[in-house]
């Protein structure tokens, strides 16, 4: 029983990270209808920036807002400089450019900070609560992701900019007619996705350790969450992220073939199964396309 409870808590804690990645992916998908394969590497790069600031002796409470701000600017810059000029280029071109970004960020991080694995301190310190059932870091992870998600919900529900971003994603032509600057809304979406990714990166780094390839599997779980919840639904993506976290941990514990180390194939099975049997995901809506 205690094992089950522990695995559930671990699942929810890592699920929060997957939810953040899934949300970041869905935000960009809704804006430009492409999957950002470089999302994980953007988050990894942000985490390295945070690590560098910590190494310079900047206090933790300052590092997080600074990293988020830098990531936001970086995300906007990538959209403006790399993605926007592509315009309506075919899917293949977009995918190639994303893979190009992936390769650049990955090896640039290795070039600047080396490929060795680095420990990353937790912002919440060591130690655990409830007799070792849940670590301080896990409590922090759950608290931070919940706060981020609630804030984002409020932002998209109640603020002018948030509503503008939703309108721009939903119907660009009409949004433009009522005076929303659609191009900048998309750039803003990229900035926010990068910022959310940076938080996810900082929270997961103490667990998976910091290295240029650390986000590849996290991104895959994020994709699995986004697909499970439905690529057209941010709420669904968040739910899917948590689901994937829980499924991953329970399967790793109770299915002997998989074991604790090799849980990644679960993500592949989830993605292919959902895409084949219910491509819209649990919460997504069917998109009808005119021939």
């Amino acid at each position, binding site marked *: 029983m205690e094992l089950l409870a522990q695995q559930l808590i671990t699942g929810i804690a890592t699920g929060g990270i997957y939810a953040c990645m899934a949300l970041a992916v869905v935000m960009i998908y809704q804006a430009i*209808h*492409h*999957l950002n*394969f470089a999302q994980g590497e953007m988050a990894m790069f942000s985490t390295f920036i945070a690590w560098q600031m910590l190494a310079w002796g900047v206090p933790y409470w300052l590092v997080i807002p600074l990293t988020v701000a830098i990531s936001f600017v970086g995300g906007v810059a990538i959209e403006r400089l*790399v993605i926007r*000029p*592509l315009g309506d*280029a*075919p*899917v*293949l*071109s977009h*995918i*190639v*450019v994303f*893979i*190009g*970004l*992936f*390769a*650049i*960020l*990955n*090896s*640039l991080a*290795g*070039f600047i900070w080396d*490929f060795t694995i680095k420990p990353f301190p937790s912002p919440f310190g060591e130690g655990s609560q409830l007799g070792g059932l849940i670590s301080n870091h896990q409590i922090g992870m759950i608290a931070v992701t919940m706060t981020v998600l609630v804030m984002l919900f409020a932002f998209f529900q109640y603020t002018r900019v948030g509503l503008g971003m939703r309108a721009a994603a939903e119907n660009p032509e009409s949004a433009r007619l009522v005076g929303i600057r659609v191009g900048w809304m998309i750039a803003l979406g990229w900035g926010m996705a990068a910022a959310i990714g940076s938080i996810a990166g900082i929270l997961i780094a103490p667990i998976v350790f910091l290295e240029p390839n650390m986000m*590849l*599997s996290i991104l*895959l779980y994020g*994709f*699995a969450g986004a*697909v499970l919840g439905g690529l057209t639904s941010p709420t669904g993506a968040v739910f899917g992220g948590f689901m994937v976290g829980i499924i991953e941990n329970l399967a790793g514990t109770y299915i002997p*073939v*998989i*074991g604790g*180390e*090799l849980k*990644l*194939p679960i*993500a*592949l099975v989830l*993605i*292919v199964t959902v*895409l*084949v049997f219910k*491509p819209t995901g649990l919460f997504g809506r069917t998109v009808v396309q005119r*021939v």
Partner: protein
Amino acid sequence: MSIDTTTAGTAGEKQAAASQTVLPAPAAATSNVKIMRAAGIALLVIGLAAPFMAGNFLIFQLTMMLIYAIAILGLNILTGINGQFSLGHGAFYAVGAYTAAILMDQFGVGYLWTLPAAGMVCFIVGFLFGLPALRLEGVYLALATFALAVVTPQLFKLSPFEHWTSGVMGIVIAKPDAPFGLPLNPDQWLYFVTLAVGLLAYVCARNLVGSRTGRALMAVRDNPIAARSMGVNTALFKSLAFGVSALYTGVAGALGAIVVQYISPDSFHFALSVALVVGLVVGGVGWLPGALFGGAFIMFVPNIAEELSKGLSGAVYGVIMILMMYAVPTGLGGLLKAALGALSKRSMNR
């Protein structure tokens, strides 16, 4: 579909090209074919002479270049000819490599016999993966194959397969000697084997593209609905394209395992799939000879970049990929065709 029609067609299938693009004058077209043919023969002569002039390490590198070219040729059949996208061809390469290694290591099968075996296994695996992929288009297919590529190293570490794959340890393979007492060292012999397989693969691919099946594959790429109404079984041809493409990549993987003499799950990291896509894009999507240039690019450019600084090769890849998408989305093939077109136009004006 996602690939525009101008990328289609080698010099050999004038008909297909002519029906799609502005009609070039027949005289100019034949002169282009002549130039291409002469270039092909020159390349072949260089290819045959190279192993007698190069050192063993360079021969090894050239062999790997040809192997990558075969794999990219397979990817090109899927993406360039059939319009489906795959970020996961590293997985088929790995399946081919493991099939060959296990057959040699556990069953003592001769290395040449492992090539058709690896091809068949990969054809089946690719065909089966193509079945669910049928329902996926564009972005979704990229996502599914991306997942496949990322998961590949872990799949081969799973405990049920450990008996065959030796898990993380990997499998060591002995290098075959040249048969019949030929005066060749093992490196030279493997180079010629690879060259022969590569030529065979290229000829088969060209004939496939020029055949009825090839036209059906291209019709599915250009307009699936129209193709279906013309009586093309789109589902069958899409799965078939996946199977054939995986077959090519699997044979390349088997050759790779024999030449490198060692495989382990971590040899088939996501970077391998990225490299194959890079090679495809650099060589030119839809232009079959481009595979050779793509193979040369992914074999030699990282080496040069790594010499400058470790970790730079990925950045070089990335920058070149993005720049090519802006400037020459048709790759080297497109550049070459444009250059030849300009040449023949000038000669006609004279």
